[in-house]
């Protein structure tokens, strides 16, 4: 399965969660995935980014977690959990993914979801090497999964069994299995290999032959075809059936990745049949190829061996000597490469200053740079551990770069908060002082007092109360004079005074009375205007109070959060750099180890070559005891 198909597959199965009735399949188009019916807008947004963004799900996951935090996806609790688990898996975070899938195993979870969870858990266990746990998980699945997933499950199970050496079990499962067409080829290949491992070669033959003769345009399938032929060929070689070995071996593509091994094997097959001249054909072809290939290295010995068998001692000697030379210089190159690795330059050579930022486990390193020591790392790249390690290294770099974009933002946020704080620091004391006066209350009280006084005046017809200041003064004066007059002894003086006062008072009263209604009306209107102003004041007052109440706590809290996050960014960045460094060291160790192993292999071959060469010279010396001096044996190295 190609990586592209993986992503599509992952998406399809993750999102094909059946909440009964949650499907809104539109058209019966077999090519289209059924539409997801989204009930929460924000869940839809996560999906949008999952499908549209080219970052292996990082943005989608960030949003998923954020929206979860705000609880904005209440209708999609299980969906989002499943999607999150799948995204963590896609980002190579097996622990987290495993935990999330575990939570989807509860009783209240629909069976289809639980099945999926078991499936992915099985896969995670397999990849981490816990084969029995993987098997248990895969066997917990009840009923069938979607066809593609079901095929993958079978495939996983078979791999688990074979890793445990349980070939017969694997064979039993494979024999009875039918699946989608594109999986059948893999299934048959596995079956063939299992049969070989179980020592059932006659049964393996037709199956591996079928795979070994399949027609295809797909590079993947053609490679598998080569592997099947190679496996069959070597199985026959091992079973001492050389003639049978040749047929499949000669089907292996000359320009394919298994060509060298096939040529080697073909030569051995011919040699085993006794035809050494024929064996030389593939071996000489191999001999011309790059010495880095293990099969080629062996051909450096196989060719002179053949010549030796054909009694061409001189040629054999020549080839052995050439082999020793090549092994020696290659050994020196390996030393140089190991030294360079320990210098710490290896990854720079492999990855350059800046790496392929694609995140996730579907990434594969396809090309190598031209630096000399990188040639030795071909075999290393076939190593799963090394590939994973390399991917980790790149992932760490990718994440590091992703954090950079937040630096500018954090500065901006801090500035924003700072501005807010200063603005409020300036205005708050004034606002507080104003609020403390509680003007509306006082004003309302005053208004109420005025209102009740006015009521009393109107009810009591207290015309004097609404008089002008002058009039009130006069009224008071008259009242005072009235008292004085009343105090006089009875007589003409008193009567005259009282009459006069009565007249003046009458005039004044008349004036006051005729103005009373109007004045009363004016007062009422003024009061109404005051009411309007008071209401306006009250509204504003409430708004100021609200703003005052909410803002200060917000700002302080945000400032703290910003500071905390800035610190976290810094800390995480340091850990990323540090861990990338550790990963680098690990990779160097693995690489140096591999090269050293290669060097040891060359040394072992060199030993054999020297033995064989010495033997040839010995025999030559024996034959020409009295003849010219034998060619001097090469200096032992």
């Amino acid at each position, binding site marked *: *399965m190609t990586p592209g198909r993986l992503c599509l597959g992952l998406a399809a199965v993750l999102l094909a969660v059946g909440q009964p009735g949650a499907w809104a399949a*539109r058209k019966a188009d077999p090519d289209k995935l059924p*539409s*997801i019916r*989204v009930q929460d*807008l924000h*869940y*839809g*947004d996560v999906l*949008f980014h999952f499908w*549209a963004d080219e970052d292996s799900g*990082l943005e989608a*996951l960030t949003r998923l977690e*954020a929206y979860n935090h705000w609880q904005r996806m209440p209708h999609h609790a299980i969906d989002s959990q499943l999607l999150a688990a799948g995204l963590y898996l896609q*980002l*190579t975070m*097996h*622990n*987290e993914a495993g935990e999330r899938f575990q939570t989807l195993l509860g009783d209240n979870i629909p069976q289809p979801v639980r099945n999926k969870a078991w499936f992915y858990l099985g896969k995670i266990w397999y990849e981490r090497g816990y084969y029995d746990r993987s098997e248990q998980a895969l066997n917990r699945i009840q009923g069938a999964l979607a066809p593609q997933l079901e095929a*993958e499950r079978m*495939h996983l199970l078979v*791999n688990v069994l074979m890793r445990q050496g349980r070939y017969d079990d694997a064979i039993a499962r494979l024999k009875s299995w039918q699946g989608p067409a594109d999986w059948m080829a*893999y299934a048959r290949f*596995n079956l063939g*290999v299992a049969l*070989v491992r179980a020592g059932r070669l006659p049964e393996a033959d037709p199956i591996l032959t079928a795979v070994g003769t399949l027609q295809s345009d797909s590079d*993947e399938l053609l490679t*598998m075809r080569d*592997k099947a032929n190679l496996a069959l060929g*070597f199985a026959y*070689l091992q079973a001492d059936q050389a003639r049978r070995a040749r047929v499949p071996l000669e089907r292996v593509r000359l320009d394919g990745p298994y060509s060298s091994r096939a040529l*080697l094997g073909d030569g051995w097959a011919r040699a085993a049949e006794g035809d050494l001249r024929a064996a030389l054909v593939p071996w000489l072809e191999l001999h011309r190829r790059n010495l880095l290939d293990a099969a080629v290295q062996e051909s450096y010995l*196989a060719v002179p061996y053949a010549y030796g*068998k054909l009694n061409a001692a001189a040629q054999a000697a020549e080839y052995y000597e050439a082999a020793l030379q090549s092994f020696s210089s290659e050994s020196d190159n390996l030393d140089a490469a190991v030294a360079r690795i320990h210098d710490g330059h290896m990854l720079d050579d492999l990855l350059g200053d800046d790496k392929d930022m694609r995140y996730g486990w579907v990434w594969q390193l396809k090309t190598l740079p031209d630096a000399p020591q990188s040639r030795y790392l071909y075999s290393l790249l076939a*190593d*799963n*551990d090394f590939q994973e390690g390399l991917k*980790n290294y790149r992932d*760490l770099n990718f*994440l590091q770069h*992703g954090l950079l974009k*937040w630096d500018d933002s954090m500065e901006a946020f801090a500035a*924003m908060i700072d501005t807010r704080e200063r603005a409020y620091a300036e205005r708050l004391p004034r606002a507080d002082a104003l609020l403390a006066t509680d003007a509306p209350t006082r004003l309302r009280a005053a208004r109420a007092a005025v209102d009740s006084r006015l009521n009393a005046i109107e009810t009591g017809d207290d015309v004097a109360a609404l008089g002008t200041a002058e009039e009130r003064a006069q009224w008071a004066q008259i009242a005072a004079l009235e008292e004085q007059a009343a105090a006089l002894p009875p007589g003409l003086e008193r009567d005259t005074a009282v009459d006069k006062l009565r007249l003046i008072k009458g005039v004044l009263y008349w004036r006051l009375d005729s103005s009373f209604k109007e004045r009363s009306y004016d007062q009422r209107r003024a009061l109404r205007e005051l009411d309007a102003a008071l209401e306006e004041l009250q509204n504003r007052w409430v708004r100021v109070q609200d703003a005052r109440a909410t803002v200060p706590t917000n700002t302080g809290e945000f400032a703290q959060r*910003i500071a905390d996050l800035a610190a*976290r*960014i810094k800390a995480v960045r340091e*850990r*990323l750099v540090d861990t990338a460094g550790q*990963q680098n060291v*690990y990779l160097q160790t693995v690489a140096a*180890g*591999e090269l050293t*192993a290669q060097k040891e*292999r060359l*040394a*072992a*071959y060199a030993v*054999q070559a020297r033995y*064989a060469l010495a*033997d040839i010279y010995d025999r030559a010396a024996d034959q020409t005891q009295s003849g010219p001096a034998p060619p001097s044996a090469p200096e032992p190295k």
Partner: protein
Amino acid sequence: MNTPSPNHLPLLLSLVLAALLPLAASAAAPPPANAPAPDQAAVAPAAAPAADAAGTRALDQQIQDLKKDVIDLNRDLFVLEEELLFPANTQVAVFVSMDVGDFFALDSISLKIDNREVANYLYTPRQVGALIKGGVQRLYVGNLKAGGHELVALFNGKGPNERYYRRGANLKFEKGVGAKYLELKITDHARAQQPEFEIKDWE
């Protein structure tokens, strides 16, 4: 998911080659006893790395923990940014969803709120595909005061006969306390063979 592991084959190969090499020795000289060993080491998949398995596992654990911390950090930053810039009581968000898409190939959308342009977004085929699959894009987030407002959306695209056309939709809405979500829905109206554009207010 993976293809049949390449580990099957090299293992096979190593066993075979191991058996082969002693045979290769010439008749006269005794075959070196330890010939098979280098072969196995050479062609066995992944010669055991010099780093010990426990150390590897620890580092792997460390990396996974670190990745988790980065994800958490990303989440917290996203949350902070939105709470700071678009607090809930003033937030307004506009989403876009699309039906099957037989009758309308979306090219761009422009949004105006209260007569002010707030978004103008170009869509690529990939994004349109994401919408058709059921994704709902959060096209715009902003702030609005409480009260009445108007949203006007203009949809540009290609109709069923490859003609470009533009459609509009508008909605008057009331912004109260709490976030306001509006959804621009592009649906196929099968009978009329025309797309329909409506704005849904998620009260």
